[in-house]
């Protein structure tokens, strides 16, 4: 009878006592690190149908964000520009470039270019662009340094914690309203606390602020 359980099995409880916490902690560490938009979303850089460079247009040429994303101040949704916006310049600038063939086709046919959306919050989050850019919250806070990106990549997690960081302390992020699209702006002495007070900025922190 003594052979049914070999002697080493006496140490099983001890082994389990050593292994279980290690495995448990590893699993927790793994989930904390990986199961978050900081891992799942940040760095997403899809291939776009047209090799449009924000680094050239918004960086080098210093074109204002709103030249193309012209709805951002008046709508919850920041529009992808229509092809006619590209053609405002590219009907003459680089008008025969192969890279722009799709733009010209789209302009001629009226069939939209199928850009790949990068920044997406879940459908039950009602983020409003206009209320942010009209109260001194810059594009750069959520989209990163777009003016340096040849190809746009998801830079910030856009998780609930990310939103709340700013909703709890807007004075740290707010800036003069007319500099919202100056992506490389550095704060030298702008009084965020005063702006939050004067502009009556009241970023809600209740569920229904964003989940409606």
């Amino acid at each position: 009878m003594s052979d049914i359980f070999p002697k080493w099995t006496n140490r099983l409880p001890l082994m389990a006592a050593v292994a279980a916490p290690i495995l448990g902690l590893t699993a927790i560490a793994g989930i904390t690190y990986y199961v978050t938009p900081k891992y799942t979303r940040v760095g997403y850089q899809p291939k776009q149908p047209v090799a449009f460079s924000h680094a050239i247009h918004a960086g080098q040429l210093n074109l204002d964000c709103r030249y193309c994303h012209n709805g951002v101040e008046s709508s919850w949704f920041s529009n992808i520009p229509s092809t006619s916006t590209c053609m405002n310049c590219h009907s003459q600038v680089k008008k025969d470039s192969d890279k722009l063939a799709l733009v010209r086709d789209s302009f001629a046919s009226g069939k939209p270019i199928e850009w790949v959306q990068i920044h997406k919050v879940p459908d039950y989050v009602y983020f409003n662009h206009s209320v942010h850019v009209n109260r001194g919250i810059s594009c750069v806070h959520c989209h990163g340094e777009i003016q340096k990106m040849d190809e746009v990549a998801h830079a910030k997690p856009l998780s609930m914690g990310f939103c709340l960081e700013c909703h709890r302390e807007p004075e740290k992020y707010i800036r003069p309203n007319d500099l919202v699209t100056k992506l490389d702006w550095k704060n030298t002495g702008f009084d965020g606390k005063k702006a939050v007070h004067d502009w009556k900025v009241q970023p809600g922190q209740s569920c229904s602020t964003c989940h409606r």
Partner: protein
Amino acid sequence: MRKFLVYFLSIWALAVVTVVSVAGLRGGLSRKPPLEVFPDMDRQPKLRPQTTAGFAGFADGKSSRVHPAGTVSRESARALDETATGKKADGAWVDANPLSVTAELVRRGRERYDIYCAPCHGLAGDGNGFTTKFGMAAVAKLHDERLIKMADGEIFNTITYGKNLMYPYADKLVPNDRWAVVAYVRALQVSRLGKKEEVPDAVRATLK
């Protein structure tokens, strides 16, 4: 027990290294769409702007609709006065800005001008915006006599519908913003036409 620890820890280490090397670190660039870990209701079959997804109601799949041919929106049908067209009832150009030209309006005009007009016409209206270095031809200089004498309504109309090589900007500037830009263009022109006597006494002494 020691043997167990050695085996267990090596397998654990191997597993950790494998996971990290396959999954990578946070922030690494990836072409693959983000993984949605708990996808409940993240993507709902409802209409969102500029997408095709989630709605099968339109044959072309576009969620943002264009006006059907031969129709006008209720807003544009309602507002056909001078402020919306730049033309008087008899079809002649409106001579002067129908909005009251305040400092606020000119400031708004300057902001809009700098965003939408300056790329070609230049920040000061000299027709030397950055696009002219890249092949944009025949950009109007806003200080030309022809444009100084042009009626406000015609400038408004040019912004609305474009002219020659210039494309329309009606989609970027609502009518009131167009009038604001007209006011700012006038301010730019006046800045070159002013006489010394018009400068306030206090500042005149500092002029060179």
